[in-house]
C-alpha cells in the first residue's frame, strides 16, 4: 500500500486520530462526573430540594471565597498524597490498597518523632517527614514480601493489613503514647516539627505545597526517568519487562516501598499540619479515597491533582450545601459512588473491548 500521497494522508489521519482520541479520553471521565451530577440532581429533587440551588451552594461552598477555597485545598491535600500513592503502585500493576494503613503508620511516626525528638526546625521537620515516609514504606514491605516470597495476593494482604494497622496505631495512641485528656491522642508535637498553617479559616498548611512538589517530582519520575520507564513496562506487561532484563521482584518491593512512603507523607501532613498530634481514628478513609482518585485519574500525576481537587471540592462544597439546604452529606457520598461505579464500568467495557479487538486483530491491521 504505498500509493503516492499516502504519507501525507496518513499524517492527516494520524492527527485526526490523535484529536479524536484526546477528546474521547477527556470526554469519558467528564461524562462520568456529569452523569453523577445528573443522578445526584435527581436524588436531591426527590428529597424535595432544588437541585440547581443545591449545586450552586456546592460550588460556592468549594470555591466561593478564601474561607471555602482554603477548606477545599485542605481537604484536597491528603488525597493528593494517597491518590499518588495508589496511582504510582497501580501504574506498575501493584495493587496497593493498603495505603490507609501505611498512612496511619506514617502519621504515628510523625507524631512520635515530632514530640520526642528535640532539634532545630531545619533538621527536625525534614527528619519527622522522613520518619513518616519510612514508617509507611516499611509497613508496605509486608504485602510486598507476601506477594514475592509466598505468591500471595496483595489485595487480600492489604485488606488484612489495614485493620491491623488501624488497631495497632489505635492502641499506641490510646495507651503507651497517650497524652492526658479526654481524647485518645499523642502529645502535641514540638513547634519545630509543625507544618505552618496559612490561614485561620481552615487548617490548610505547608503540606499542600509539599504535595504539589511531590506531584511534580512524580510526574518527572514517571515520564522522564529510566526507572519510571522500567516500572511502566512492568505495569503494562511484566513478562515483557522481565525478559528485557527488568527485575520484577525488585520492582514490586520498590513500588510498594515508595507507595507506602507516599502514604506516610499523607499521614505526616495530617499530623504535622492539621492536628499537631496523632489523633486516634483521624482518617475518614483518605487511603480509600486515594483509590478513587487514582482510578479517576488513570494513575497520571497531573490527573491525580485534578481528581483530588474534584473530590476535595465535593467534600468541602458538600459541607456548605448542608448549611443552605436540607440535603445531607450522604449526597456527596452518592456522587462519589456513582462516579466510581461509572469508571469501574468503563474499566470493564474497556477490558471487553481489548478482548474483542484482539479477536479481530486479523482484520484491518494496517
Amino acid at each position, binding site marked *: 500500500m504505498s500509493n503516492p500521497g499516502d504519507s501525507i494522508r496518513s499524517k492527516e489521519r494520524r492527527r485526526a486520530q490523535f484529536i479524536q482520541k484526546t477528546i474521547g479520553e477527556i470526554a469519558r471521565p467528564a461524562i462520568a462526573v456529569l452523569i453523577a451530577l445528573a443522578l445526584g440532581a435527581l436524588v436531591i429533587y426527590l428529597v424535595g430540594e432544588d437541585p440547581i440551588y443545591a449545586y450552586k451552594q456546592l*460550588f460556592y461552598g468549594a470555591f466561593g471565597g478564601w474561607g471555602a477555597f482554603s477548606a477545599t485545598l485542605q481537604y484536597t491535600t491528603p488525597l493528593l498524597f494517597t491518590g499518588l500513592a495508589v496511582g504510582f503502585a497501580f501504574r506498575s500493576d501493584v495493587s496497593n490498597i493498603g495505603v490507609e494503613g501505611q498512612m496511619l503508620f506514617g502519621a504515628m511516626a510523625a507524631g512520635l518523632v515530632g514530640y520526642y525528638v528535640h532539634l532545630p526546625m531545619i533538621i527536625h521537620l525534614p527528619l519527622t517527614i522522613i520518619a513518616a515516609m519510612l514508617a509507611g514504606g516499611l509497613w508496605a514491605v509486608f504485602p510486598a514480601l507476601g506477594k514475592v516470597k509466598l505468591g500471595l495476593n496483595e489485595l487480600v494482604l492489604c485488606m488484612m493489613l489495614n485493620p491491623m494497622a488501624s488497631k495497632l496505631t489505635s492502641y499506641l495512641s490510646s495507651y503507651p503514647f497517650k497524652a492526658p485528656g*479526654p481524647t485518645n491522642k499523642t502529645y502535641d508535637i514540638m513547634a519545630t516539627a509543625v507544618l505552618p498553617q496559612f490561614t485561620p*479559616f481552615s487548617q490548610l498548611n505547608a503540606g499542600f505545597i509539599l504535595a504539589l512538589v511531590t506531584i511534580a517530582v512524580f510526574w518527572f519520575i514517571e515520564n522522564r526517568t529510566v526507572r519510571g520507564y522500567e516500572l511502566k513496562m512492568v505495569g503494562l506487561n511484566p513478562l515483557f519487562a522481565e525478559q528485557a532484563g527488568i527485575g520484577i521482584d525488585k520492582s514490586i518491593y520498590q513500588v510498594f516501598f515508595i507507595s507506602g512512603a507516599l502514604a506516610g507523607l499523607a499521614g505526616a501532613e495530617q499530623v504535622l499540619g492539621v492536628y499537631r498530634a496523632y489523633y486516634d481514628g483521624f482518617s475518614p478513609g483518605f487511603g480509600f479515597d486515594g483509590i478513587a482518585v487514582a482510578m479517576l485519574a488513570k494513575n497520571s500525576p497531573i*490527573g491525580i491533582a*485534578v481528581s483530588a481537587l474534584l473530590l476535595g471540592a465535593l467534600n468541602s462544597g458538600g459541607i456548605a450545601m448542608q448549611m443552605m*439546604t436540607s440535603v445531607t*452529606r450522604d449526597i456527596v457520598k452518592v456522587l462519589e459512588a456513582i462516579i466510581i461505579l461509572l469508571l469501574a464500568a468503563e474499566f470493564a467495557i474497556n477490558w471487553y473491548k481489548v478482548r474483542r479487538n484482539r479477536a479481530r486483530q486479523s482484520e484491518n491491521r494496517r
Partner: protein
Amino acid sequence: MKLRRAFMLLTVMVLVGAMTLPFGVSAAPKKIRVAMVTSESGLGDRSFNDMMLEGFKRAEQDFGIEYRVIQPRSISEFKSTLVRACQQGFDLIVGSSFDMIDPMVEVAKLFPKQDFFLVDVDYTVLAPNITSTVTKDWEGSCLVGAIAATVSKTGTIGFVGGKDIPIIHRFFIGYYYGAKMVNPDIKVLESYSGTFTDPAAGKEYALALKSKGSDINFAVAGATSAGVIDAAKETKTFAIGVDSNQNYLAPGFVLTSMMKRIDNQVYDGIKAKVDGTFKGGEVKVYGLKEKGVDYAMDEHNKGLIPDAVLKKVEELRSRIIAGEVVVPNYMELTPGQKVMGKPAIPVPGK
C-alpha cells in the same frame, strides 16, 4: 494526559459555574437560624447525634426556628466547617463532643460576635461566646448499674465500652458505683471494644463477657452497641442501651437504656437564644435533677424489671437528687482511683 485532565476540570467548573451566575441571597422573613454540627459519627447513629436532632425538631415546632444539620467527616473538618457556618450567619451554632472543643474555641475567637453552644463536655468555661453543658451521665449510669445488679441472676454483670477513653470510663464508674451500692458482692466486668462503629466487635465482646458469667451487659459504644444487643438476643441475656432509648432494638432483651437527654439540652439552648437570655461563657449542668439523664421505661421492656426493683431505684434517684449520695465523676478522680477494672473508689453500703 495533562490536557485531558485540565479539560475535564474546566468542563465541570464551567457547568457548575453556569449554575452560579444568577446567584443571590433571597430575602426570606427573619427566622432564628441554628446550625447543628454533628460529631464524627454523624446522623443515623441511633444514638447521640440522632438524639440531638430530636431537640432541634422540637425547637423548630415550638419556636418556629430554622435549623441545618452539617456533618463533617472527621475532626480535621471541624474547624473549617465552623468557620463557614459563622460566615453563613447562623444565629447559633450547636456542636458536641470533646473533640470539638479546640476547633470551636479557636473559631469563637475569630468570630467573637457569633454565639456557640457546645453540649456534653466538661466543667471548663470555654469562651465568652460559648455556652457549654455537662451531662452527668455517671448519675444515670449509677441507676442502671443498680438495676442490673439487682436483676442479675448470676451475680456478674458486664460493661462494653467503645474506645478506652475517659468519657467512657465516666459511664463505667457510675455503673460500677450503682451496682456495688445495691449489692457489694456483685462482680462488674469491664471491657472496651476499641471501636464505636463495629457491631461485630460489640457482639464478640458481649459473648466473651457472657462466657465469664455476665448476664447483663451495659453497652456504651455507639454503633458497636448494636452487636451487644444482638448478642443479648442470641444468648437470652440482657443488654442495656445508651444515649437514646434503644429498648425497641430488641424488645424483651434490652433491660433498659441509659438515656442522655441531649435533646433537652439542645432545646434549652435554643430556647435561651429565642428568649434573648442566651449568654456565653457559662457551663450548664444536666444531671438527674435537671432531667438530663434517665433510664428508659416503655412497652418494649415492660415487666423485665420487677416493680420492687424500680421502687428501690427511684429511692436512689431521690437520694442522689437530694445530694445524699454523690456519684463519683471519673474526670475528678485522682490518678490512683482510675485503675482500670477495679476503681478504688469508696462505695457506701446500702
